């Protein structure tokens, strides 16, 4: 038996993650010991301070403490810091939207009592007590912690743990909708079952890779992949199974079937958070796995990912045309965007990693803002998500309609929005590195989805309003999130260079 060697951990490098997890732990204790009435006022500042503190630690401290730490399990390098920074910044926006309680009986996006049966006396009792769900805050923090570890994992097992840490809270949060609770619980169950299924694929793939290379460390795998011969029958299936687990999380075709149901069933603020931050984390992890671990086998996985990217763009774009529900429409839009983002992985170059980061940031900001607005449009108390209910919104509530239209234009990639610069930053490296046919396909898919987005705008501005649909008056939390989201969407469209330069300088993986 060998002598025990204590693992060295560079605490300065992992400080942002430690802050987020510590805040989550304190959040659980707040849930346990603080009286019900004062939990909300305790949780909101705690969550925001935790996230902001982690972001500050990341910006001020971690850049000087890059390196591989915890025996290769955690890699803190340029891409890690960039992905973590984007996740933290966007989750602050998302928490502001989630904290919206609308100061009105029954308008809250979250159920008072997630464990009660819809329509039961227990639920009615929780409503009478006027409770408000505050568990979402620690759950969000745990998910954010997992999302930060996911792209930082230097080891397939650590990556699996991060995948679970980010997924499990999301499953619960999906089932917490205040209205249409059965739909929400159904979405949570579907998400959980399919998520567990894809996690099994991931860990099975990791086992096969371990069998071929005798390691789960990405850097060791990278070295072994070039030398091992005759074990391709273990290695290639292993890589593809790991890819299935990751592609499920980003919602790529043919692993997308959960996306529309979950996006529709989850409370809108959670959908925004999930759509934006999960994608960032999963694409960060995917980039690390393929760029660091499996680079030598690129001729095996590149064609597969290219086909998946093409399918994802086409299926997402075509199915978004037929959608009648605005949340499902944005779900199919997110599938299409996942297809575009896969170009950044297929292109296999550092410029495409920079494009990937920029696109994820731009898409995430617009998504959180759009879902914050969806939560405000109501008919008889419930969210009015059917497209027909959005008719004439431009006349009844011009501000909401204008900002939502702006987000739609950003999704479509119209100049002066972040969507345009992001698409340019992502597609240019893909053209340069041999993915011309994919970029042509992406352009066609963009044109199709642009039609869908413009149709929503036309509906809002050139149709007669429907009786009974109104926009509820939000508090300063939603105002702040939407204002920042819209401003950033404009700024990244007009003045993209600060973020783009930061992404470019942070696009080299440490091996």
């Amino acid at each position, binding site marked *: 038996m060998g002598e025990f060697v204590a693992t060295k951990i560079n605490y300065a490098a992992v400080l942002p993650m430690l802050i987020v997890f510590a805040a989550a732990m304190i959040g*659980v204790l707040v849930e*346990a010991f603080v009286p019900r009435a004062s939990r909300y006022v305790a949780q909101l500042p705690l969550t925001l301070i935790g996230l902001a503190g982690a972001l500050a630690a990341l910006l001020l401290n971690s850049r000087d403490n890059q390196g591989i730490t915890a025996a290769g399990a955690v890699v803190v390098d340029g891409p890690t810091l960039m992905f973590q920074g984007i996740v933290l910044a966007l989750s602050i926006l998302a928490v502001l939207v989630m904290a919206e309680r609308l100061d009105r009986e029954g308008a809250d996006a979250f159920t008072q009592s997630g464990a009660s049966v819809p329509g*039961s*006396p*227990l639920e009615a009792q929780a409503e009478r007590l006027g409770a408000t769900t505050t568990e979402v805050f620690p759950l969000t923090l745990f998910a954010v912690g997992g999302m930060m570890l996911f792209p930082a994992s230097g080891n397939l097992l650590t990556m699996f743990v991060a995948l679970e840490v980010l997924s499990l809270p999301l499953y619960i949060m999906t089932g917490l909708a205040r209205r249409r609770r059965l739909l929400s619980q159904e979405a949570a169950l579907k998400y959980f079952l399919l998520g567990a299924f894809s996690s099994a694929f991931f860990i099975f793939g990791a086992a096969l890779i371990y069998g071929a290379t005798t390691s789960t460390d990405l850097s060791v795998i990278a070295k072994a992949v070039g030398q091992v011969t005759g074990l391709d029958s273990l290695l290639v299936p292993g890589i593809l199974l790991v890819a299935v687990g990751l592609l499920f999380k980003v919602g790529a075709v043919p692993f997308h079937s959960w996306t529309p149901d979950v996006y529709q069933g989850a409370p809108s603020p959670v959908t925004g958070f999930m759509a934006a931050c999960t994608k960032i984390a999963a694409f960060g992890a995917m980039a690390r796995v393929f760029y660091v671990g499996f680079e030598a086998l690129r001729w095996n996985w590149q064609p597969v990912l290219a086909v998946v990217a093409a399918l994802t763009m086409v299926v997402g774009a075509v199915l978004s045309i037929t959608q009648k529900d605005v949340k499902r429409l944005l779900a199919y839009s997110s599938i299409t965007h996942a297809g575009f983002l896969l170009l950044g992985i297929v292109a296999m170059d550092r410029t495409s990693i920079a494009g990937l980061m920029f696109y994820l940031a731009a898409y995430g900001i617009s998504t959180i803002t759009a879902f914050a607005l969806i939560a405000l449009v109501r008919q008889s108390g419930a969210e009015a998500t059917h497209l027909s209910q959005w008719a004439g919104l431009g006349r009844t509530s011009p501000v909401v309609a204008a900002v939502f239209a702006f987000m739609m234009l950003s999704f479509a990639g119209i100049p002066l929005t972040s969507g345009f610069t992001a698409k340019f930053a992502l597609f240019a490296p893909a053209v340069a590195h041999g993915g011309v046919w994919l970029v042509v396909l992406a352009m066609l898919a963009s044109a199709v989805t642009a039609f869908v987005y413009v149709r929503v705008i036309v509906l809002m501005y050139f149709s007669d309003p429907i009786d009974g649909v109104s926009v509820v008056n939000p508090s300063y939390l939603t105002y702040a999130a939407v204002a920042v989201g819209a401003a950033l969407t404009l700024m990244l469209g007009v003045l993209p260079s600060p973020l783009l330069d930061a992404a470019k300088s942070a696009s080299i993986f440490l091996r």
Partner: protein
Amino acid sequence: MTNYSYGPLLFFAAIGLGFAAFSVVAGALAGPKRYNRAKADAYECGIQPSPHAEGGGRVPIKYYLTAMLFIVFDIESVFLYPFAVAFDRMGLFALIEMVLFILTVFVAYAYVWRRGGLEWD
């Protein structure tokens, strides 16, 4: 890239599909067919589910909660065993890490306790 390298994957998928199909078909053909009320239960696990709560088909989760708590502390002891064998050689670092680990488990314990998870009725 040669197409050959995908051969084992397809072969493996075929074995997987074949096994699943075989199990389902063999079970349907060879298994005894006795129909009774227990077959209609949501979870056919041999024990009668506890009586339902009033006003809804709520399934009591007492057993599951106990099982979950057991797993939490079971995992804790799994980590404590190797630590107890080697803590003198690992020094202060391991001690601090283990204390942190136990503290995080106790946070979960405190939550369960305060929220009434330890009360049977």
